């Protein structure tokens, strides 16, 4: 789960990391008020769960409350990479001396947290990695031991930091690691991390991603989840415990297991069709879930045919069949549906379907045949 900048900063503040003073506004007038309260030069920043808002015009630095109002008027409602701006953060100004980059992510290969630091902040770290890789300091942390004092020293000396900045960055590093583990984050990124002219080190931006699997133990973070931001169908899928991604084609696809569904998409494409979505019903999907899944897929008006590919392991064929029957009955689906059922309790599932097959449901033995049939039926 991604946090908005202002939420991420709130989290960082809880872990002792300094930020600039800021106020969230949802209307131009609120923005004006906030700017008045903060005084002086302020930044008006679009709150969106995507990068590149600066280039897209989502950040404006203004010198008066009225200008703040105007800036907010422009930014609110703006579309940035498919995300609509619903809130802006009005943030106080600061005299910035240097901009740095600091993040902690999970390195899957090393199976350890990875710290990245660069004295070149404020730009894409990928760009920095390309242009001046020597400016990036990389440090792995042992998950059981945690961050050690010597690692802060390595960062400091490798990056050539000195004086107050070295001290400030060291403190932020240790607090950020606490935030990373404490909030079960898979990413905490401060870009830029700035040193002010008076020697303070503070987070000018914050990107925090919290591991969804851990949300049961972070109720306060789970509550931040922004339902408005998601596509309504993706939102509905998430509530039903399904993984749904909308795509541009016309063959609706359901299956169990991310790998099998991805492979089904590929096979549909190889058969000359274009997938309308990715939908994984997950392991052990019961009738209720299958029914919800079919509803979601068919609610996309582009969908011309549906391919239903189940290879049961933890998912049982009989339940899948029952869910399918329920969904078809309930939603009165008339689109052609091609079903391919294999694995655990598949025979029982096929029996249920055979006993009561509606006109529009077709069964196929193999994945390849099922894909071809779905593409063919979709063409009318």
């Amino acid at each position, binding site marked *: 789960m991604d946090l908005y900048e202002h939420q991420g900063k709130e989290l960082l503040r809880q872990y002792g990391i300094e930020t600039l003073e800021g106020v969230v506004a949802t209307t131009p007038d609120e923005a004006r008020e906030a700017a008045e309260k903060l005084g002086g030069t302020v930044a008006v920043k679009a709150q969106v769960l995507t990068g590149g808002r600066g280039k897209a015009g989502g950040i404006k630095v203004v010198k008066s409350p009225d200008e703040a109002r105007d800036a907010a008027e422009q930014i609110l409602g703006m579309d940035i990479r498919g995300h609509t701006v619903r809130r802006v953060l009005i943030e106080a100004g600061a005299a910035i001396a240097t901009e740095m980059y600091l993040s902690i992510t999970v390195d899957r290969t090393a199976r350890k947290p990875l710290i990245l630091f660069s004295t070149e902040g404020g730009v894409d770290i990928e760009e920095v990695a390309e242009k001046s890789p020597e400016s990036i300091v990389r440090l792995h942390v042992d998950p059981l031991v945690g961050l050690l004092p010597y690692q802060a020293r390595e960062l400091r000396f490798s990056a050539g930091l000195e004086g107050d900045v070295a001290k400030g960055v060291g403190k932020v590093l240790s607090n950020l690691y606490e935030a990373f583990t404490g909030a079960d984050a898979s990413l905490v990124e401060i870009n830029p991390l700035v040193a002010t002219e008076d020697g303070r080190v503070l987070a000018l931006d914050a990107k925090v991603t919290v591991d969804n699997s851990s949300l*049961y133990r972070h109720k306060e973070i789970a509550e931040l989840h922004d339902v408005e931001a998601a596509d309504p169908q993706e939102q509905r899928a998430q509530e039903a415990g399904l993984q749904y991604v909308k795509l541009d084609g016309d063959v609706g696809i359901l299956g169990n297991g991310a*790998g*099998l569904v991805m492979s089904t998409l590929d096979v549909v494409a190889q058969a000359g069709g274009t997938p309308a979505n990715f939908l994984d019903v997950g392991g052990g999907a019961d009738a209720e879930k299958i029914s919800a899944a079919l509803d979601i897929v068919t609610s996309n008006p582009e969908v011309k045919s549906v391919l239903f590919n189940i290879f049961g*392991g*933890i998912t049982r064929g009989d339940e899948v069949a029952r869910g399918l029957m329920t969904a078809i009955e309930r939603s009165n689906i008339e689109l052609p549906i091609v079903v391919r059922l294999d694995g655990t309790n598949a025979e029982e599932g096929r029996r249920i379907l055979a006993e009561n097959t509606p006109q529009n449901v077709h069964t196929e033995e193999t994945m390849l045949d099922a894909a071809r049939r779905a593409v063919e039926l979709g063409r009318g």
Partner: protein
Amino acid sequence: MAILVDNDTRLVVQGITGREGGFHTGRMLQGDTNVVAGVTPGKGGQDFEGVPVFNTVEEAARETGANTSVIFVPASFSADAIFESLDSGMRTVCCITEGVPVHDMLKVSDYMRMLDATLIGPNCPGVISPGKSNVSIMPQDIFLPGNVGVVSRSGTLTYQIVNELTQRGIGQSTAVGIGGDPIIGTDFIEILKKFEADPETECAVMIGEIGGNAEQLAAEFIQSEMKTPVVAYIAGFTAPEGKTMGHAGAIVSGGDTTAQAKSEALRAAGIRAATNPSEVAELVAEALRKG
């Protein structure tokens, strides 16, 4: 021989009285698996379909000689269950459970460095050595004893490919679902190493996905360390960039983590890379013919 599980496997099921644990224990009992014990705290002394239930893994191991465990407990208790099985002497542990927090797994996988043990998963279908032992939720009827080792990040895609192999009369030595989570106990390379060392495995199948660079690292390993022929398949050719496709691991964020890029890297390393499950079986048949 087979790898990880075989005729010597004495299995304890953690969470045996739960819905999934119970269901799959029943299925494992129908197969070749020697399920010697179950564990559910507070239900010690009961029995489950003839399998004695204990309160702790330590007790189960002491009383039954269990040496392998499979975990079906809820995600919030899974890390604890893994530690319990490792500390009770289990040397192969399969964690089927989905949704185990990443930071829990970071600690578990760090702890594994201290031990001579193998953790498969979490969020995986388990391990099956057909005709020997089934420590999984995989539908065992589709498997056939044989000489092809299968390793996969995906569960159901594994069934699909195994099914294609079996339908062509190609049997499997061991099939391992390593799981699709960001942090897993055992990766491709560790399993491929075991297949390479297994005299029974004459060909290995590696089933990958978009996202990450595990397949590229495996390609390097295969090229430099393996004599056993390997057939690979990467799912997700049609996945758009920047979207998460189900598995936490399956997110495409840059050019070189796409299925195309991975397949090309594999081919560049001299590895047969298929574009769909049926083709995997064809390439395996070809590899076995050429020896």
